């Protein structure tokens, strides 16, 4: 399987059904997901609450086991510990040891990668600088951290091993606008370094700014997949853009267009916002219901 081995993430018919204590089906959280993320791309996973985004990530990391289907990550079956060497993961909330301070946290995760203490001594402050935690807060226990600070230390631990594939579950929640901007810059710089990023987010503007391709999940099913630009194209409308055109000229152009072709005008397809697309996709699949409520209920 070349796709399975060459791509960063490759899933086939990946399905997750949460069962209750007695083994009865409770929630079909992910349904037959076929997804391929290429190496080096920034991929956005979108969807309303409860659509299965986090479930997908957990499956890819082996935190939970698939009910059906397969998932490969960096060429190896999901959940194999060896592949974790090259993965960085930022969970939806910062699930870290709250009694450790920032530096200790990074050192701990560094040791799990068997990074020599010498290198850790250098890398830990470096990373803390990258994610923007100042000297004072590095020495404070995580339980005293604000939400944004916790998010930053969470990001730092995800990057401690200089991973090839980074899974970010809603990385910008809790961050201030500056932090959000920095996060986006960071993702782009990771892309420049040739790393693969899988990004889950609700903040559509973020996704639009950084993602190469996206998919939208709804009720555990993949609804759309493609280049961000392609997906946002509206093909039945043609837009003509010129600069400094007088109304007279415009009528002439219109006159001209009525008869023949055009030479001095750029004609492009206009884009809607991602938000429009998002709402449209969800609406199309929820006849007569509010998408969010529909997304959560079963």
């Amino acid at each position, binding site marked *: 399987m070349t796709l399975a081995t060459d791509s960063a993430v490759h899933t086939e018919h990946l399905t997750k059904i949460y069962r209750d204590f007695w083994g009865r089906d409770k929630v079909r959280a992910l349904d037959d997901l076929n997804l391929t993320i290429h190496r080096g791309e920034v991929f956005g996973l979108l969807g309303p609450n409860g659509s299965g985004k986090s479930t997908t990530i957990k499956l890819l*990391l082996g*935190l939970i*086991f698939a009910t059906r289907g397969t998932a490969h990550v960096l060429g190896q079956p999901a959940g194999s*510990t060896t592949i*974790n060497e090259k993965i960085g993961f930022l969970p939806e*909330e910062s699930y870290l040891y709250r009694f450790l301070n920032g530096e200790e946290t990074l050192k701990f995760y560094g*040791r*799990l990668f068997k990074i020599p203490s010498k290198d850790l001594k250098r890398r830990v402050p470096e990373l803390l600088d990258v994610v923007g935690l100042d000297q004072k807060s590095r020495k404070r226990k995580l339980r005293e951290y604000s939400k944004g600070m916790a998010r930053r230390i969470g990001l730092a631990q995800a990057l401690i091993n200089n991973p090839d594939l980074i899974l970010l579950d809603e990385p910008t929640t809790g961050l201030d606008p500056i932090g959000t901007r920095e996060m986006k810059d960071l993702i782009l710089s990771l892309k420049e370094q040739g790393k693969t990023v899988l990004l889950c987010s609700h903040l559509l503007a973020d996704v639009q700014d950084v993602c190469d391709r996206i998919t939208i999940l709804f009720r555990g099913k993949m609804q759309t997949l493609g280049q961000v630009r392609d997906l946002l194209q509206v093909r039945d409308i043609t837009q003509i853009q010129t600069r400094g055109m007088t109304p007279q000229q415009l009528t002439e152009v219109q006159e001209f267009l009525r008869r023949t072709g055009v030479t001095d005008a750029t004609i492009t397809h206009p884009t809607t916002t991602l938000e429009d697309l998002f709402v449209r996709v969800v609406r199309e699949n929820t006849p007569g219901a509010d998408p969010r409520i529909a997304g959560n209920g079963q």
Partner: protein
Amino acid sequence: MSSHLLGDFEISNFTGAILGVVIVVGGLLIYGFRDLLRFSITRAWAISSVCWSESIRRKVLWITPLAIIGVIIVAQLQRPSDEQDAIRQTIKFCLFATGLLIVITTIILAATNLPKEIDTRVIYTVVTKPTTRLEIVIGKVLGFARVSGAILIIMGLFTGLYLHLRASFLRDDIRQRLEAGLVNPTDLASYQHYKDVGLLNAKTIEMPKQMEVFARVPDPKSKVRWFSGNSEGEALIPFEFKKEDFIAPDDNQDKTPGKTGAVALIKIGWDQVGPTPEEQRAGKLPIGIAAPDTKPTTRIAGKLVRAPQVMVRVYDTNLNQLLPGNAVGNGKGVDLADPAGITPIPVYITPQGIQQMLQGDRTKIFLNIIGPNKGYEYSIAPDSAVLLIPGMSEQTQPKVLQPAYSNNNPLAAMPFLRGRYGMGGEQLPGSSKETGPVVVLPFSNAAPSGSGAQVSFQLRAGIENSGDEDTEKLTQIEAVAYNPKSGETSSPTKFYLEANRQTIFQLPRGPLADGQFEIRLRNLTDDHYLILRPDSVSMIQSMESFDFNLLKSLFILWLMSILVTVIAIFCSTWLSWPIAIVLTLVILLGHWGVQQLSDTLQPGVGNSIAQDLGLQDPSKAKAFTSSYEALSKGLVAVSTILPDISQFSATEDIEKGVAIAPQRLFDALTVLLGFGVPMLALSYVFLRNKEVAP
């Protein structure tokens, strides 16, 4: 009674071991082979460090000062019987508190840790690193082992300091009282010993190989041994046999063993050492009135006496009477003829008796010979008894079964003599005369270490006194060391003894030096009986440092805490923490609990309960009985695969001032590894198959 349970136990112990091996091989070596190869101590240690930091930052160690305060308060309330007892009790409190502390702490910490990490999802960031679940499990065990180790170090330091302080105060006190002459005679030897070696010690102890009670000090040149009359002594002669041995020599038909019964042919000598009751009475009665003729009496050398007699009985290997009285010698005593014991006297054992003796594939019995009459002592030698199996016709020569003496073991080369046997042990009657009953305790490979002129022994025995003697009288003991090889006998040491209290006495090193010697004790106080068991006397072979002993006992506690951690973690891999805590306790106490219940789990108990419940209907009673038996069998089986925490008894020895033998550490380690490693393997397998999302 418990032999059946024990038998079952050994079998299921074996299945338990197989189960353990299967789990370890299957779980770790096969299923977890890759993770085993990947195992990194760096990662496990990092994980353990987090457990450690968490405990420290949650201020778990703060419970140690609380425990210390508790111990000090309880120690103030104790009512010791003497200084040594005060120290003993203090050691007990300290170690009990320590043990309790680490067990509770480790159970709670270890059982809640994984569920909590899964609940707070911290586990997400740990398992998505290249950590294997094996490293997580081992790392957690290591981490809590570090925590319990820290608690043990703190408690150990406190215990050591506190005990040294108390012991030095008490020793000063003893010194002053000795100087002022304020010590009871019974305490003198022991106090002198405490003054010399202090109250905190760790002795290594040598026990005698056996204990025999003779009526007279054995003569090394002769194989004759003496036991007391008046049923105060008895002889035991071992016989080993096969069923076929009891087939009559001329039985060519159905060859039923025991058809012709058997004859015990005994040669017992005797000596009159005092008046018989009849003589006593005759002497006291006024002249002219004859003594009432109660029992057949005999005239020997012109004197009117009750005849010297012995009774023969058959005992099983637990030294319990096996055959009913009338099966052997018609249940009556046999009169002895010549004092030298040359004439053999037959004692008939009935065919029924022999058949009963052969039941249950028995291959060994003891012939028990006892002299009921007062005023005599009886002599016995290795050739004093044989068993004859007579033929069907009188012309046939009987088969001869010789006693099963051992050629290799000098302790089993002769009839075994013991004192009157009661609840607490064997009696040693007192006698202020030159000669009298003597306890002989052979030691082997028991060379005392050190170089002092004297070697210390300890004696703890019960004391009973007969009749209306004034009970204030002290019991005096005389001890002698004898070396059979060199023939050297030490000068006697005399000391006073108090009932059931350890007393120290000293003997010169000379005869003891090569480690092959006998200790002989005589009771010099008339009408007092010493109650002795083979472990009543022991030699203090050497002294180890108390601190080292304390270290050993703390180490055993530490091993126990690791086992507790493993069990708690195992339970928490698949249960919520409150249930995990309960299950951990059940696993820990299960083996012990079933042992406590062992009497009610005996086969046959179900039946008697059914009767007690008044189940009239036989089918109902049968159903009840069989389900009860199945249940108790199941319980016993389950308990045998649970760990035996009694192997972690760290306090017993150190409390007694005895050095903890390396074997104890080894036993504790065996239980830890034998149970802990399979548990660890299971925890790993469970955790690997667990979705760590809440």
